[in-house]
């Protein structure tokens, strides 16, 4: 007979066994109470976002002041665009911008090509028992922190006893002083970036390929299409939208570099800054090493605002090309 012992039931039959409703329930009814509960549930995360994401928005103000720790964010003297004038007068800011954008472009382009290639390889032999092991090994880099990556990069590139220089010497060639030769680093960083991202990226494309209707392949086989023809006229065109959209969405974040890659793998080596200093490492140094907070904040604001515009722009592009039944844009 008794259906309920709960407090917030809406079942009228069980009213007799219910505890008396709380005051707000009496005042506004169950709907209000339920909404209040939901709000309460959301509250911890909302508070976190308020403090860490919204309060920090006021922090962009620091870029327009001569920041003094004692006087706080809003007590510091307002200097207008002075910090920005200083920032863009330095060669380092432009260098960091150039490095960030060009290296990211390279990572995105080659990352997409290699991920797609590995995904296709996996797709070709997906039924094989070995595929499981390939997947596991390809995911391995995803578990390793940048610090550990920097350890093995050092084991490869150390001048005196690194594996690569030893090999070069054994071949009768001259070893190179990698950590003081910036010209090689775009290439080294590209390889390391591919090492850490291709495995995971390929699994995304692989799942896209597995979602393709198998009837298409059966029909193609009946028509006598070989594997290459099947790839060219089925797999590739079917997976292309996903690739394009992934690339466009990564382009939106082209102004922010992976701090770990550029800080750890280069061992923060000043001799390499010419090709490895990016906005994130530049801001880190301004903030903690040279302790020029206003300058750091100006660079940060510049990075954030350009990043914001890029996100809006590329999302608009994605929205204009995506299919209606498969929304992939952020908003």
């Amino acid at each position, binding site marked *: 007979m008794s*259906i309920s012992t709960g407090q917030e039931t809406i079942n009228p039959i069980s009213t007799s066994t219910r505890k008396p409703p709380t005051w707000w329930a009496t005042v506004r009814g169950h709907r209000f109470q339920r909404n209040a509960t939901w709000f309460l*549930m959301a509250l911890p*995360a909302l508070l976190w976002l308020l403090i860490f994401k919204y309060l920090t928005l006021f922090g962009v103000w620091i870029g327009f002041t001569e920041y003094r720790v004692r006087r706080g964010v809003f007590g510091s003297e307002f200097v207008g665009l002075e910090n920005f004038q200083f920032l863009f007068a330095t060669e380092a800011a432009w260098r960091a911008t150039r490095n960030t954008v060009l290296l990211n472009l390279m990572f995105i382009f080659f990352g997409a090509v290699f991920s797609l290639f590995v995904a296709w390889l996996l797709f070709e032999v997906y039924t094989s028992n070995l595929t499981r092991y390939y997947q596991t090994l390809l995911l391995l880099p995803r578990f390793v922190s940048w610090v550990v990556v920097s*350890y093995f990069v050092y*084991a*490869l590139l150390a001048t005196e006893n690194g*594996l690569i220089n030893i090999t070069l010497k054994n071949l009768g060639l001259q070893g190179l002083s990698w950590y003081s030769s910036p010209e090689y680093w775009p290439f080294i960083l590209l390889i390391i970036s591919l090492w850490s991202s291709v495995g995971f990226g390929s699994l*995304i494309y692989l799942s896209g390929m597995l979602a393709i209707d198998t009837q298409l392949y059966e029909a193609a086989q009946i028509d006598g299409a070989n594997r290459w023809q099947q790839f060219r006229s089925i797999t590739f065109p079917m997976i292309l939208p996903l690739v394009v959209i992934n690339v466009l969405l990564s382009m939106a974040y082209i102004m922010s570099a992976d701090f770990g890659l550029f800080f750890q793998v280069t061992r923060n080596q000043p001799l390499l800054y010419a090709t490895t200093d990016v906005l994130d490492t530049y801001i880190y140094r301004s903030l903690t090493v040279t302790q020029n907070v206003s300058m750091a904040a100006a660079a940060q604001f510049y990075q954030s605002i350009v990043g914001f515009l890029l996100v809006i722009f590329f999302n608009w592009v994605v929205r204009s090309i995506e299919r209606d039944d498969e929304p992939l844009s952020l908003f």
Partner: protein
Amino acid sequence: MSSYKTQIRQLRKQDTDQLLSVITRFSVHFALIFFSLCCLVPLLLIVSASFTDETTLTRQGYSLIPSEFSARAYELIFRNPNAILRAYAVSIFTTVVGTIVSLTVMSLLAYALSRPEFALRKPLSFFVFFTMLFNGGIVPYYILMTQYLRVQDTIFALLLPYMVVVYYVLILRTYFAALPPELIDAARVDGAGEWRIFFSIALPLAKPALATIGLFMALNYWNDWTTALYFIRDSDLYPLQYLLYIIQSNAQAMQIQSAVGNIAAGEIPTQTARMAMAVLATGPAAVFFLFFQRYLVRGVTVGAFK
């Protein structure tokens, strides 16, 4: 006669096709083995170096197979294991507590935002989502943490940064929104309150999503060294990855000093010991994560993660 010739020709073509397909399969496997080894070998280099004799490593250099086997690096570490044990404790604590708390906080928010009858759903969703577009970045965040919240050199500095990842909230919200409404209505008729529905219906049904996101969160916390780089100076609170970084950068500094002649070369923490530390810091966690990798693969194959 001519039809016989075409038949022969067709048969030959089939043979070449079959041969080609065998060759293709073989080369595909070959390429995949190559790529898989590329992922594995650099890590083996660290393991091999950690088991190499120190002087051999200095003289003959790094190699994939230790040219002279030695476990002395590990002996050295285990003789004085305090630093690494402490770092282990800090890392395990932040990973476990951080993952549990953030998963709870995020799924509570996601659940509330997934309720169609929630009056504040639209404005709150925008409030949450907007943070993905504009990011104040590290500078205001650094000042907030150090000047206002003053959490530097406390365990909170390590726990707070990744509490809410909006992207994961959106995924969880989609997941909760897809729960069958009849189930929730039935629970309500049975008198379950919203909390009860959340904990005994929504959460258990969302287990796959929670497992995947939990794994990603755990990875975030375990591999985090940037937070310590900014906010931790107290060596008792060094997490593992940061300890590894410190050892490496101290060795770098000492090398420079010893080149100038201030320090005897023997005092520098040995290369093999550093590599052994890296193995001890990564090995157990790598095994743990590989054990749970199917959740990661599932997360990918659901198409939920970009």
